[in-house]
């Protein structure tokens, strides 16, 4: 098609070749960057509501000064600000400030009324009645009454909405208005988890008029009653919130009952934590909301900065074993972990405190129970009783007893087959997985590590050759155990030793003490069978400039922004 004079040199093939080589090079980098993003997405993903906590930041002595703009960095952009259309972590991170919920968590892990002044529950725990506070309005002045509450929940329950948060409402069948300030939740089955779920900002109350007026555009024009309201959403760049003049603060965990001190809060979207920290150092942002331990260590004690840690974790990192679940009956462990001694040997082989220090730079709490340290029914006694201290000799004895004898090459064998396991982990956990690999190999396992992005991991793990997996699950309520036991792979297929029944019982026990006992009993079932090897609860870390005052985590794992002020 292109004909050239024979004498003219032909730059075309050379250009093509170079362009193609460069393309390949870029493509590889693209994969790398994508992987990095997935890790960040994994960190930012999922619910981030949080149980009781304090903060390590020293309370500020000086009187707060009003004014100024606080600029924060977040790794991922919210997909929508319509709570009926997402359960993404970044969206929840904004919902928390623009919406109010019926109830809120207190500092000691209980609940208090937020939009609701009080509530009552029927004896069968199937009918819950909430009384709204008088005179509530949305940021645009529309009334926040029983109609708005009913609209919010019926919209989520309506299958046509396709609300991904619908499942969290569990057995809720309908929400009904009794009078302008009273709503009733009707449940198909008793649930002790309703308050836990209603306190999460996926169930923030939305303005029906705004939803109807904006239609599909509501997700970019949200209207709530929270301490802040949306001023601007510059796609991919930033989201600006300003104080909501109509907000009334009822939560005991927020000290400032008046208007927030800040004139505006800007959430900048910066995917790479390294870039966030550069922006922090150059003064473009005032804080990076979520960073890893290795970064925090660099800023610990650095003049001009503060490292703020949320010690009460809602996450649990644990090792699980491949299982199969027949159509009926009990699920079974796949070899070689069908012998409890082999599972226990994994526990004894690992030096978890060493991993926390070396890989996580100390930013995690050793937790030997399935319940995260910051969640209801976390039991310190259980954490003592069931903890595996590293004991390689004991691990060896257990493996010997299970018939796995040490071969000349350092790999154990049984009936001529090596003790080979495929170990799956998320990219974000790769460093931890590699240490675990070497510690397991020291007692005679032969371990292949597969580190994968979140999407691939959760979608293919159930049908893979995986024997052993590492995962981190985060949830603010004790039904995190139900979540773990129904993930669909590994321990997520577990139905042995009466665990489903124990969890079901705990889920309908409303009395607090009895409920705690029921969850402890369920944890014992898991630990007695060595069904998982819990490792630690990771801590949330933010790094901020030291001119940001009162920068601390509230009971829901979010910074208590209404209390934050800027030193001039």
């Amino acid at each position, binding site marked *: 098609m292109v004909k050239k004079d024979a004498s003219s040199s032909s730059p075309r093939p050379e250009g093509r070749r170079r362009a193609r080589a*460069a393309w390949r090079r870029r493509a590889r980098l693209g994969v*790398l960057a994508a992987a990095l993003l997935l890790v960040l997405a994994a960190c930012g993903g999922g619910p981030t509501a949080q149980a009781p906590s304090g903060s390590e930041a020293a309370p500020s002595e000086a009187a707060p000064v009003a004014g100024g703009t606080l600029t924060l960095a977040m790794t991922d952009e919210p997909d929508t600000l319509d709570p009926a259309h997402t*359960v*993404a972590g970044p969206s929840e991170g904004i919902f928390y400030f623009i919406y109010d919920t019926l109830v809120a968590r207190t500092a000691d892990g209980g609940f208090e009324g937020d939009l609701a002044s009080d509530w009552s529950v029927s004896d069968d725990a199937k009918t819950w009645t909430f009384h709204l506070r008088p005179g509530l309005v949305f940021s645009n002045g529309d009334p926040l009454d029983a109609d708005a509450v009913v609209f919010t929940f019926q919209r989520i329950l309506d299958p046509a909405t*396709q609300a991904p948060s619908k499942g969290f409402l569990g057995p809720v069948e309908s929400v009904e208005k009794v009078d302008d300030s009273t709503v009733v939740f009707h449940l198909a089955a008793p649930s002790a988890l309703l308050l836990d779920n209603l306190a999460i900002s996926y169930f923030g109350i939305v303005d029906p008029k705004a939803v109807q007026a904006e239609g599909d555009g509501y997700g970019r024009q949200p209207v709530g009653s929270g301490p802040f309201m949306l001023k601007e959403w510059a796609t991919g760049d930033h989201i600006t919130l300003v104080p909501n003049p109509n907000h009334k603060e009822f939560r005991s965990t927020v000290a400032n009952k008046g208007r927030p001190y800040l004139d505006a809060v800007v959430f900048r979207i910066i995917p790479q934590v390294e870039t966030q920290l550069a922006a922090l150092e150059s003064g*473009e942002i005032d804080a990076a909301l979520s960073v890893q331990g290795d970064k925090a260590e660099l800023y610990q004690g650095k003049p001009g900065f503060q490292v703020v840690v949320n010690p009460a974790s809602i996450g649990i990192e644990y090792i699980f074993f491949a299982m199969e679940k027949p159509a009926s009956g009990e699920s079974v462990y796949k070899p070689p972990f069908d012998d409890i001694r082999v599972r226990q040997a994994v526990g004894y082989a690992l030096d978890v405190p060493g991993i926390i220090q070396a890989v996580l730079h100390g930013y995690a709490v050793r937790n030997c129970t399935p319940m995260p340290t910051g969640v209801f029914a976390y039991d310190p006694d259980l954490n003592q009783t069931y903890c595996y201290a590293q004991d390689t000799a004991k691990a060896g004895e257990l493996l010997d007893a299970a018939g796995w004898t040490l071969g000349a090459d350092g790999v154990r064998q049984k009936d001529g087959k090596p003790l080979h396991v495929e170990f799956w982990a998320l990219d974000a956990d790769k460093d931890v997985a590699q240490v675990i690999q070497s510690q397991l190999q020291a007692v005679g396992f032969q371990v292949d590590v597969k580190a994968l992005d979140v*999407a691939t991991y959760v979608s293919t793990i159930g049908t893979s050759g995986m024997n052993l997996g590492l995962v981190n699950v985060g949830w603010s309520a004790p039904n995190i155990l139900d979540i773990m036991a129904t993930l669909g792979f590994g321990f997520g297929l577990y139905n042995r030793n009466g665990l489903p029944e124990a969890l079901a019982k705990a889920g309908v026990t409303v009395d607090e003490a009895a409920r705690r006992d029921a969850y402890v009993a369920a944890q014992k079932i898991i630990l007695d069978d060595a069904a998982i090897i819990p490792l630690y609860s990771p801590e949330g870390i933010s790094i901020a400039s030291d001119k940001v005052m009162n920068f601390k985590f509230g009971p829901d794992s979010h910074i208590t922004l209404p209390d934050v002020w800027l030193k001039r």
Partner: protein
Amino acid sequence: MGRYVLARIGVAVPTLVLVSFCVFLMLRLVPGDPVRLMFGMTPPPESEMALLRHELGLDEPLLAQYAAFLDRSLHGDLGVSYRSKEPVASMIADRLPRTLRLIGLSLVLAALLGLSFGILAALHSGRWPDLATSALAVVGVSIPQFWLGLMLILLFAVRLHWLPAAGSATPAHAVLPATTLALGNAAVLARVTRSAMVEILGQDFVRTAWAKGLPPARVVGVHVLKNVLIPFLTLAGLQLGDLLSGAFVVENVFGYAGIGQLGVYAMAQRDFPVTQGVVLLAATGYVLVNLVVDVLYGLVDPRIRYDA
């Protein structure tokens, strides 16, 4: 000429259809269920996810899904994001101007740097400016963009406070990412400029020009440069596509809200309509640029003939 262009467009359309099919298929072959991912670590019962898959049409046979997608795309409807429920076309339209600004700026930078260093090297062929330029070019081509980006941020944003580290709000925000994107391409352009120029400097007509006593600026600036521009323009044009792929890395390093950032995020979430839209756009851009380069080629070098 006109017939040639028409024929090229005739080839471009099936190319784009093929690309769309490959992307469509690849997205669905890569592990990762978009519906499962919408729920993070806490999925609802399988029956509910199946319902959602049905609503999104993900339970239809692949070919039927593709036919529907193709039909909609041909009518200008790229679908709606699984996540934000926004129309894909408007999500892309929001971000495209910023990516174009980034690519345009880096193309200009790469051309200026490539041409200057290439000329410098050729004029001092075999001596130290040539060797230094060669060394620089090797470094420029080899440096990973995410690392280079971070180093530029450290120097110009953190140390010198000259430019912002991240974001895309103002034109100043495009400078560092565009530089990061430009350097690798500038290195390639410098090498091509140099080799083309060394070859041309040795030709008879250049010797004649020198012999006529023309001033050096005229010999180099007019007689030589005109001929260097042919390979230079070809390569610079082809690099546009290259810059677009580089934007996927660089936009993420700099938190620059363009279509690269959108594409990477959509892929991580397996938001198929958005990923398809972004890749389709990139492919269209690449095909168009190739077409324009081929046409320009003929205009710059009249010796080239087109037979459709």
